[in-house]
Structures are given as C-alpha cells and as structure tokens.
C-alpha cells in the first residue's frame, strides 16, 4: 500500500491519522529517493541490541539490563509485548512463569519493568522501528534501524553494539487452496490483532482451520467476542493442542473435526463459504466427502515458521529442522549462535510457546551480560537455574517436539565444533 505518497507501507502496523491518503499499490513502486537520500543518520551505541519486544525479547532485555549492560530494545510495532498483548487467556506453567496470569497482564508487567529500567538509563526502548540490516563492523556489530514517525516520515539510525539478541518471533504459515487470496481469509494472528488489539470484528461466522493451541484458543476468543465459529477442522488425525482448550470450545457447542481440511473458498469479491473435505491416512482428500460450510471468514492456524532472515544475513549458520518449524539458527545452551555475540531466543530459535520463550530470553540476556564481563558464580548459578526451568517445562509429552528440535540443534552445534 502507498500512504501519503510513500510506497511499500505495511498499513497493518501504520497508525491512522486524520486526512491520511491510503492507496492500493499493485506492483513494485519507485521509491521517492529524494525523501530519503542525503538525510543524516543518527548513531546509537549500546552493549546489547535486542530485536523484537515479544515475550523472549522483553525478558532478554530486562535480564541483560539488570546485570549491568546497556540495552537497546527495538520493535517494529507501536507497542511492546509482541503476541502477549493479544493473549487474553491464562497462561500455563508454574508460578515462576506467571502461570494463571493472562498474557496481556504479563505483557503489562514486563513493560513496567522495561520502563523502570529505562528511567534508570539502563535500557532504551524503540518502537515503530525496524532493524533493516546488518553491517559488519571492525570489532562490534552494526545494524541499520529505521524509525517510523507519526507523520509517516522516517529516521535512519546506525546502531553499534557488542552483542545482539534476535527475538524476532515467527511468521504464520499459509495454506494453498483456491480462493486463499480473497478478503476474509486470515491468519490467526491477524484475527487476534483485529479482535484483541483493535477491537474490530473480523467477521460474523468463522471456519477455523487447525486445531493446535493457536486454532483452539483463537476460536474460543472469537466466541468471547460474540462471533460464531462454525467448526474447527484439523488435517491431522488428532487434535494438536491441549485437551483443556479443546474441551472449552466443545462445551460451547463448537465441533472439532479431525482428518478434515479446507479444499477451497467460495466467493467472488470476498469469502462467501468454503468447501471442506475428509482426508485419508496419507493426508489425501477423499473424493465425494466434500461438505459446504457457510461462513464469511476463514481463519488459518496451521503453524508458524521461525523468522530468521536477520540471523541469516548476519551469517549465523542455519539448518532445516522440521520439529522447530523450518530453518533455524543453530545455537548452544546459552542461546548463542555460531557467530560470537549473536544470540537467538523465542520462536526465532524454534517454534514453541511464550513460557519457554521467556526463559530462553532470560538465558540469552544473561549470557550476553556474562560475555560482556559479568561472569561470576552467582550469574552462572542463575543461568543453570533457568536451564533447569526450561527443561522442566519441556519434560512432558507436549514438550516432545521442542525437545527433539533442541537436541538436533545441539547435535549440529557439536559437529560444527
């Protein structure tokens, strides 16, 4: 989209203001060079740059700053919190990881801690700012950061740092089917943003595709927002998410149908319905089993892919690990990648969930502080404690996938050494 003459604007995260001109853009646009070229860039120096202010990034930033290193936390959204600000459900885990607290409350608590550290000049938060690239420095790491201002102009920063923690999260997976580009086909994250952040109903009647925790939780939140959920279809033969989430939906009368998926979306200008189909044990559609579903919205909750582009650009070695959700940067148990001083935490290091992301963030934040000279017995002990907590959370059957993923990652790391 073009906003006030500036092309390639992600309008979903651009704040709206009176009199703004928003236009469709159907092809690559010429950049209005004159607006950007020759503009002075500002320089920021810091010890640790944290990219992404979701659960992992916020915890990483707090942990580093608490241990005496200067931190810059950058996020492309207007608010810190990442996915937490959309999570109206209560979190699992143990007391230490805020179990029983709603995600949105956890986000607020973490933000308060950030603001406190900001007041003490230990940390700086930059929102509406995107890390656009990595530039090799002689001794330190250098990054380009663009801050978007409220008048749609932008400021370029050069950030120089000793270490960087990439907690960029993940991107939602898409499914291939006819009509998947029609308005009314959403990713679950978009539906949550509309409902829980902006207070906008995404539709009136929803077909949910995917019965992992995301699909189940978002379906329940749709019901809470007064939106009808026709059913949840899941291609796998079993429900992937927790039974407690599934049971909540079922007792509201929403059926969950496994070994079923979406075949196509009906409609010309927007979603007017969908065709679903049974799948055999080889996940192939069974001819003749098609059923028409009346809906105006199709919500896809079919998994996530780690966001690793910045890590690849830095030169951190990556491997394809299906259990982690795709390509991930290899890392050790301090969350350090194959590049010294470059850390990863949260979904960027393998798809999991917020409780473990927060601990990974703490591990990365503390490790970065230790690398910068804050090595002592106490910190080493704390690091071990975080590792144990992480292990505990992954010990059950639902922790199998991340367990396998992390084992593969450490095996690869061993080979590299």
């Amino acid at each position, binding site marked *: 989209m073009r906003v006030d003459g500036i092309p390639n604007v992600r309008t979903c995260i651009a704040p709206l203001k009176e009199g703004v001109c928003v236009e469709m853009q159907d092809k690559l646009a010429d950049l209005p060079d004159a607006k950007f070229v020759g503009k002075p860039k500002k320089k920021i120096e810091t010890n640790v740059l944290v990219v992404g202010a979701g659960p992992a990034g916020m915890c990483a930033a707090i942990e580093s700053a608490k241990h005496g290193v200067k931190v810059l936390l950058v996020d492309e959204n207007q608010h810190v919190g990442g996915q937490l600000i959309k999570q109206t459900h209560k979190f699992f*885990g143990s007391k230490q990881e805020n179990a029983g607290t709603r995600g949105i409350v956890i986000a607020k608590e973490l933000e308060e801690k950030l603001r406190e550290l900001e007041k003490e000049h230990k940390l700086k938060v930059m929102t509406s700012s995107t890390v656009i690239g990595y530039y090799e420095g002689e001794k330190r790491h250098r990054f380009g950061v663009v801050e978007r201002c409220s008048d749609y102009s932008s400021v370029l920063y050069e950030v120089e740092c000793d270490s960087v923690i990439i907690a960029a999260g993940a991107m939602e997976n898409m499914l291939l089917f006819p009509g998947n580009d029609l308005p009314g086909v959403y990713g679950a994250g978009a539906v949550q943003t509309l409902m829980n952040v902006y207070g906008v109903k995404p539709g009136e009647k929803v077909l949910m595709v995917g019965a992992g925790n995301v699909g189940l939780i978002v379906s329940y939140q749709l019901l809470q927002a007064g939106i009808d959920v026709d059913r949840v279809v899941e291609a796998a033969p*079993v429900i992937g998410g927790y039974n407690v989430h599934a049971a909540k939906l*079922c007792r509201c009368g929403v059926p969950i149908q496994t070994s079923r998926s979406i075949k196509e979306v009906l409609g010309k200008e927007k979603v007017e319905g969908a065709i679903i189909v049974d799948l055999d044990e080889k996940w192939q559609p069974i001819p003749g089993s098609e059923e028409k579903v009346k809906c105006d919205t199709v919500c896809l909750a079919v998994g996530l892919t780690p966001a690793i582009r910045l890590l690849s650009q830095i030169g951190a070695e990556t491997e394809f690990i299906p259990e982690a959700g795709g390509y991930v940067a290899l890392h050790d148990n301090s969350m350090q990648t194959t590049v010294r001083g470059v850390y990863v935490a949260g979904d960027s290091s393998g798809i999991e969930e917020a409780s473990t992301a927060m601990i990974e963030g703490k591990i990365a934040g503390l490790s970065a502080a230790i690398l910068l000279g804050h090595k002592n017995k106490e910190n080493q002990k704390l690091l071990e404690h975080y590792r144990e907590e992480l292990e505990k959370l992954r010990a059950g059957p639902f922790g199998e996938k991340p367990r396998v993923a992390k084992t593969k990652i450490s095996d690869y790391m061993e080979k590299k050494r």
Partner: protein
Amino acid sequence: MKDYERKGVLSTKDIKLPSKKQLEKGVAILECVQEIPCNPCVDSCPVKAISMKNINAVPINDFDKCIGCARCVGLCPGLAIFVVKVKDGKALITMPYEFLPVPVVGQRVEVLDRNGKKRDTGLVKRVVKIGKTMVITVEVDEKLAMDIRNIKVDK
C-alpha cells in the same frame, strides 16, 4: 487413540470421579487428563488436597481432603475444574465463566453438557470472582451432576 484426542470431548470414564458421599460434601473434579506443564491448581489449594508428581504430571485431587472451596476453579488456566455438590435431589455445579453478560443470582439460564448441547435450565445460585475469573454456581437436577459443564446466558 482415545476419543477425546479426536473430538476434544471428555467422557466421565476419562476422569477420576468422587464417591456419592464425597459428592454430598462437594468436591472439585479435575477434568485435566493430559500431561501438560502447568500447576497453579496445586498452589491454589488451601488444604493441599491437589497434588502433582511434577509440573507435567496430571493433577490428582484427594476428595477426602478437598473442601470444595472452588479457588482452583477460578485459577485453573485450562478452565478444567468444576466443583460438584449433590444435595436433596439437586446438584450445585460451580464452573468458570468467561463470557458476557455475566448472569446474576436468581437468573434462570440454559445448562449445557460437554458437547455444548442444551440439557435443561438451571438456577444461578452464586456469582463470584476468583482471581480475575468469574465463577458461577448453577443448580440443576441431580441426574445431570456429571454432565452439565457450561451455561448459556440470554443477551
């Protein structure tokens, strides 16, 4: 493969159930059958009736110790705990409720089973906030004590 793994709906066979006598006292029934990393119910219990071997284990309620206070009902992140008390042919079912409008005491509401099917109507006897979750007690026929797990409130 268990049925609930495909459909999400538990049957009473999947759950540890109290005896008749324990039901008369009123106890918390934990409809939490999978090993997930979660333990606030253990911390919430004032009489230490709920226990877990480790954070991933399935919680077990000692019905003899349980006093049916419903603290766990409000604190369980999975909304998977219900207090059931049977007396004089009626069952009082205490459940978490996260929808608007919140019913008021004395209101008659539809009562739904684990499939979300309407089974009867029930009388709202108690509405409290535990933690930050609304917890509703509804009175239904004794026969429905093990079936009713949700309510539907007219808007």
